[in-house]
């Protein structure tokens, strides 16, 4: 069965600093991988997704993620964090062709001035 692990429950970074949020997945084949963001009082918004091809994917709001099969990881990165990036970030995996997503427990990002 597929699963997702986000080892960091809470991360605090300074505005302008770089960011990396970790995500590890467990799945027998090549999964579909996603990063979602949830701002307070908002729904989940898709940041980016990976299905195949280039292992470095670009998303919205300046985020990118890199799929590393050897490490079963799909870490999210941003070179310079803005205060508006403070939110909860969720990594998710789906079986190839499936309709439902399996989410990690999320990482809460706090941005300090």
């Amino acid at each position, binding site marked *: 069965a597929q699963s*997702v692990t986000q080892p960091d429950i809470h991360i605090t970074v300074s505005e302008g600093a770089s960011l990396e949020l970790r995500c590890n997945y467990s799945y027998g084949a090549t999964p*579909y991988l996603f990063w*979602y963001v949830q701002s307070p*009082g*908002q*729904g*989940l*918004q*898709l940041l980016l*997704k990976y*299905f195949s091809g280039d292992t470095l994917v670009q998303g919205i709001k300046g985020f990118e993620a890199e799929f590393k099969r050897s490490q079963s990881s799909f870490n999210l990165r941003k070179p310079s964090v803005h205060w508006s990036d403070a939110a909860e970030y*969720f990594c*998710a995996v*789906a*079986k*190839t*062709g*499936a*309709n*439902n*997503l*399996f*989410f*990690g*427990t*999320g990482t809460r990002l706090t941005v300090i001035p």
Partner: protein
Amino acid sequence: EPEVTQTPSHQVTQMGQEVILRCVPISNHLYFYWYRQILGQKVEFLVSFYNNEISEKSEIFDDQFSVERPDGSNFTLKIRSTKLEDSAMYFCAGSGQGAAGEKLFFGSGTQLSVL
């Protein structure tokens, strides 16, 4: 960007009562989903719905749960007899084509509190 609307934003109910959580998906979407998130835990898949029937459901979605799209616009989740452990944030989502490759649009959620 079009939005998925969920009402109410917060619902409080007594244990054993029935609740109906409502969602208005984006009008041209065909696939609909319910997810839930118990405080401090993962967002969990409950059920997917297509062509007026359930296409997939998780083990969480037992006989106490049901979904329907009664009028072609609203998409509802009913819990017949709520339990304390049903307290969670419930998210509705929709997509145009349903495959995992399609972008899911999520609502902002309904916080259900069972007392």
